[in-house]
């Protein structure tokens, strides 16, 4: 037990999105919902990092600098966050047909579209939560829908976890995400709580 069907997944995800829309949490469907496991819900979070060595090094020399483009323009306000590097965390909740559970894919990338290796995030301690991540469940794999590399938390433990909460949970996506999410910086708003409690 602890498993759900694709249709159930879609229904649970939809009620999850309803709450997200109410609180402007930013989750949205992507992909083709008519196809088994062909759609997922996604969210992006922008995060400011202090510049770090572990992040992609900047070019030391700049043979391309083009001063001719520097038309006198004194209408540019000074950047407030110039010393900060921005990272985007992208979270996808998919359905795993083989495990019949939700599965979490994620990536972290800088503003030039370069994926940040997990190791450097881990070392930098930018996401403190990463340190107590259940490493055994983490791996990198091609995204089943997008066909690009993503990190993902292996669903091998998910059914077990959902089984534990069965009866108390009316939306397994919420139960599971509130347990797995914090490890990768994804904290659910308390507003989602009513999705798992309203049966009482």
């Amino acid at each position, binding site marked *: 037990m602890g498993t759900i069907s694709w249709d159930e997944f879609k229904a649970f995800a939809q009620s999850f999105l309803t709450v997200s829309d109410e609180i402007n949490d*930013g989750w949205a469907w992507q992909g083709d919902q008519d196809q088994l496991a062909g759609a997922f819900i996604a969210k992006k979070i922008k995060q400011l990092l202090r510049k770090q060595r572990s992040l992609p090094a900047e070019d030391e020399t700049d043979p391309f*600098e*083009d001063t001719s483009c520097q*038309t006198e323009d004194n209408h540019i306000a000074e950047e407030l966050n110039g010393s900060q590097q921005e990272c985007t965390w992208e979270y996808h909740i998919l359905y795993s047909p083989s495990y019949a559970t939700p599965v979490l894919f994620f990536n972290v990338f800088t503003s030039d*579209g370069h994926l940040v290796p997990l190791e450097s995030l881990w070392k930098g301690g930018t996401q403190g939560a990463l340190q107590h991540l259940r490493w055994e469940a983490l791996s990198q794999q091609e995204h089943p829908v997008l066909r690009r590399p993503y990190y993902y938390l292996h669903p091998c433990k998910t059914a077990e976890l959902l089984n534990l909460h069965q009866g108390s949970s009316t939306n397994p996506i919420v139960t599971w995400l509130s347990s797995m999410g914090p490890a990768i910086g994804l904290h659910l708003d308390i507003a989602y709580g009513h999705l798992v409690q309203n049966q009482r």
Partner: protein
Amino acid sequence: MTDDSALKYSPFSSHVDPSFWHKLSQIKLDIDKLDEKVHPVWGSYTNVNTVGLPSLHVDCTSYNSKFEELRYQLPAFGCQLNLNTLESYKSSDKTILLEKQGASLWADIANGSVLKNPALLSRFFLLTFGDLKKYTFYYWFAFLAPSTPNVQIIKPPALISTIFSSAQVESLQSEWSNIVDVYQRSYFIVKIQGDQAKIFPLSDIVSIFKAQCEEQWAEFYLAFADPCSSGDAPGWPLRNLLCVLAHYCPHVVGKKINVLSLRLVLKSHGQVNAADKSLLMSVQLLPHNETELKWVGWERNNRGKFGPRFVDVSGDMDPKKRAESAVHLNLKLMKWRLLPEMDLDTVQNTRCLLMGAGTLGCTVARLLMGWGVQHITFVDNGTVSFSNPVRQSLFTFEDCLSGGRPKAEAAAEALKLIFPGVITSGVTLNIPMPGHPVGDSMLKETQDAVATLEKLVEDHDVVFMLTDSRESRWLPTLLAGAKKKLAMNAALGFDTYLVMRHGVFCDDETPPDFNARSIPGRHLGCYFCNDVTAPGNSMADRTLDQQCTVTRPGVSAVAGALVVELMVSVLQHPSKGDAPAVLHKSTGKEDQESVGCLLGTVPHSIRGFLASWDQLTPATHRFSNCIACSEKVLKEYASRGFDFIRDVLNSAVYLEDLTGLTSLHKETENADVWEFSDSEEEENNSE
């Protein structure tokens, strides 16, 4: 010109989603090919819940014909020019390119298009060059804006709540949210009437600002969705909006204009109005000459210079690099989670020489790759035969055709197919064997073979002996011993196996302590130490039965796995090849732990018996009369080199005389015969 009252704008900063590079590569390879095409591309930005710099995003949907409408995302119209070469990138005239884009934006302003579709004012240009073989991109965004009109601040930006009532602010937010057409959401006009905020489309600009007297538009605000989240400076879009005003209502120049920058913070448990962070200000346009309009907006790169940005996404896109990082990530996860002290680098940088590319060689090579070993060389003299592929995991039926491919070469090629990051090669070579006399005709070839093997052993860190005859292990054992390399041995019987590490000698003269509970690596024996017969031509002596004997198919997989794991345990021990082996298993657990490594004990040898499913881990001392590793033999090789080897090849008895084994020779029967073969070809020396 730079006085405090001059209005300044927060520039956009570009954000590229990884999917944009994937899509760009695909379009270049499949559609554009060698054309240097200009593509219309969508950008998106938002004035809702923004964090950090005001950013303009592109991703894979940028190439869609229709703008991908996501909640609160506003469209920006872009043009991308993708150049073919770095040279054309360097030599392209950026000023002319920008002027051309500017002319197009100006046309949209002048012909009224922007009044019907205000989103056309959010405009960018993107110049790219991608090296699709290296997965690197140069890219440069320009967020188009006219250099004039200059604008003076009359009333500095203030939070909306200091001027509007909270009812008005609330009304503003809900009115704005009710705008259905996404293209009308970025630029508009706001009027305050009582408690209400009313929104007018930009197309009303002429009728609203046609009055000659500023009092008549005092209740109106020229408004825009501001991608900037903090600070007093309004975002970049205002620049183009003021230019539109100057064009359509030139008489407003010098008069007071109210401006509203709409910034929304939508939070689940917010007590405040979502639009509370919005700004109000009053400005005054200075006269300018439209015919002399210049265009600006090139983005500074990460170092604050006017130049392209560079990104290397090979780690994300190059399949070979992805394979490498995935393999290493798997190992790192094991390290992080289970064995933080694990020294993966040593394992991965260990260069492994595999004598034999048969069942054992194939299994060992695959498992070494599993540990991330990057450097694997095969030595084998055989060709792939039809019986091989089912047992030898690196070969397929195809390899057997036309007489069969050389095994060493085929195995190396198979490794590269499995994992292109591996550094591997195959050397086809007959390993010279004691008791296999070298005639004059073979002298040169044998000499070359010995020289090649010497060089190979020199160039590797670990020598694996995985051949199917005892004799073929003699020379590699001697060479590994002489060059102080770690030698790993695996040999198979029908349902038995022997896996062992040879002692790694050092110049330490301390005699072994035969009463100690463990034996340091330097005093451990080799494969031949327990044998009291010199290797003769056992192939000739074998009965047909023995030559054709096959092993149980699983035996080689078990032994191959153990020999790799034993090597890894040796490498994880702080003393490496000198790691002590516990003499008796009965020794206390503490003893075992005190001499082991983080993976556990490091035995000398492992003997397994499938019939009884037993496994033993005996350790034995180096035998002072050993025909392969004793001091006498090593010294003889050191002083006479190939001449010594030739004497051994020509006569096995020579070794027995040298080491003093002759006297022992006939007294003992060697009960253990480990040299069974699963290959039917006699000349095929791999197991």
